[in-house]
């Protein structure tokens, strides 16, 4: 399962972490209900250029993604339109249930500024050391490229590896003989 995106330093065996997302816990604040986060993250939906995640009351978005196991996050791809695509994105690890009021309370694990290239699909490599044991990721999109009221995101891909943890589902009861 090699990573599928193009070019540059997509290093050895980074996988798309889509399979490890715990879908029951994913939350997105300030999303427009007709354009929910599934459009950007879910398999199939995110490939569709027409479907995008849009913000509602203002241009900020807060997406909380828990994982089913510990992962190391290597890079992230955020695709969006040139104008309304995100610009400043802050990432927080292992913080549950953040709100817009406490995004400023603690420093982000990483801050990225997306260039138009990135919006085309070029991955952004993250500070790997900060993302070693990630249970949940919070993506805070602070503003967009043009400063418009609505931010649109077409696709979000997380790439990384899993930490060697026991998959509890794989454990089987020992049969008594």
């Amino acid at each position, binding site marked *: 399962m090699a990573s599928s995106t193009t070019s540059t330093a997509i290093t050895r065996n980074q996988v798309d972490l889509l399979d490890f997302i715990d879908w029951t816990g994913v939350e997105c*604040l*300030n999303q427009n209900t007709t354009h929910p986060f599934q459009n950007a993250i879910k398999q199939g939906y995110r490939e569709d250029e027409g479907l995008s995640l849009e913000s*509602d*009351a*203002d241009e*900020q978005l807060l997406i909380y993604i828990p994982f089913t196991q510990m992962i190391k996050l290597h890079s992230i791809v955020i695709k969006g339109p040139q104008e309304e695509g995100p610009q400043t994105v802050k990432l927080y690890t292992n913080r*549950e249930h953040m709100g817009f009021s406490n995004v400023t309370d603690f420093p982000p694990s990483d801050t990225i500024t997306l260039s138009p290239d990135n919006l085309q699909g070029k991955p952004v490599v993250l500070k790997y050391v900060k993302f070693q044991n990630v249970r949940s990721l919070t993506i805070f999109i602070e503003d967009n490229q043009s400063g418009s009221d609505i931010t649109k995101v077409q696709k979000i891909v997380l790439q990384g590896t899993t930490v060697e943890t026991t998959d509890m589902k794989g454990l089987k009861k020992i049969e008594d003989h």
Partner: protein
Amino acid sequence: MCLLEADDHLVQRHLFRREQENYRFIFQTLQFLLRFTLFIHQSSTMVLEATMICIDNSEWMRNGDYAPTRFQAQADAVNLICGAKTQSNPENTVGVLTMAGKGVRVLVTPTTDLGKILACMHGLEIGGEMNLAAGIQVAQLALKHRQNKKQQQRIIVFAGGPVRYDKKVLEMIGKKLKKNSVALDVVNFGEEDEAKTEKLEALVAAVNNNDSSHIVHVPAGSNALSDVLLSTPIFTGDGEGGSGFAAAAAAAAAGGVSGFDFGVDPNLDPELALALRVSMEEERARQEAAAKKAADDSSKQGKEGESTSQDATMSENVGASASESENKKDDLMDDENALLQQALAMSMDDPAATVTTRDTDMSEAAADDQDLALALQYSMQEDAKDQSDMSKLLADQSFVSSILTNLPGVDPNDPSVKDLLASMQNQPEKKEDDDKAPKEDDK
């Protein structure tokens, strides 16, 4: 006589058993009906929600244009909402804060304990002016720190006094609420003022996301604040469904009784509810029968009731109650006692209805067992109190059918529903026929 008295107890038991068998069928059919209607309603809203209720305890709440005072009407509405929320989902939490007085004060943080919420509503002081913005912000904060993060956040504001804030400020607050996915319900009552209405409408429009937020305007009038709220989306939730609480309370309100029929009937104790309801129906049907019988039997009273042991005892007991009821009838003006009669007549009639082989000799004997009859009366009286209105309404078939037609999912043309209605109709009619039959026997 000693022999007969010894058998009393057995006969009583026998009589009761017969009655029970008779009732069981009725119970089951009505139980089905009741459970069916409740199921329809309860299955539709089980949203897990944390709610903060913002109460207005400003000086404007002293006004009496809502009976008895605005504040009291508001308190009743709050109690009703708390009950509805906690019943629609046991994990729902509700908290309360006051917006006026010395400042915004949280009375109770979101909790599932209804008792705590109701208790904190006591001893609230009226004064000051309502601070809407601060109230909403504190409510939002309280919700943010809720224990169960899976709960949807909702704020219910009772806006009675005037609103001092600008429309712009309120719209900003609304946007912030929407951004944090907090729903807002506003009850606009008390001070009537165009600017206030406009501001509140703008606030709710700013918060509204997919119809989850509502505003209700309640003008002053004869309708209680709580009754008006019962029919609004604040109670019925976002969809077409409503909680069982709301449905039952609405039906009761429509029937002219605020609150439940016999206490918290269908939700806590469906069987008791049915028992009470059935006894009311029977009593009403008996009322006419008892009236006729009393007129006929007055001439027969005092005649000997010669028969074999069991029949004699039965007719004695029956005679005792009949004579008691008859005597009472002359004195009676109250509904309660009339119902009492019906109950007595009912116990008298049932053996007649069920026992075909027995010589249902309804000739009245001397009132031997006065004590026993009295005991019967009292046990019936417990159930009969305060329920005359409801009994009449329930026995009114047209009313029942109109309720049924209004229920979603119940098709009055459905054969099973028709059967139920027919059986309910037949039961009182059947009993009356049986009453007439024994009378003819006597003659």
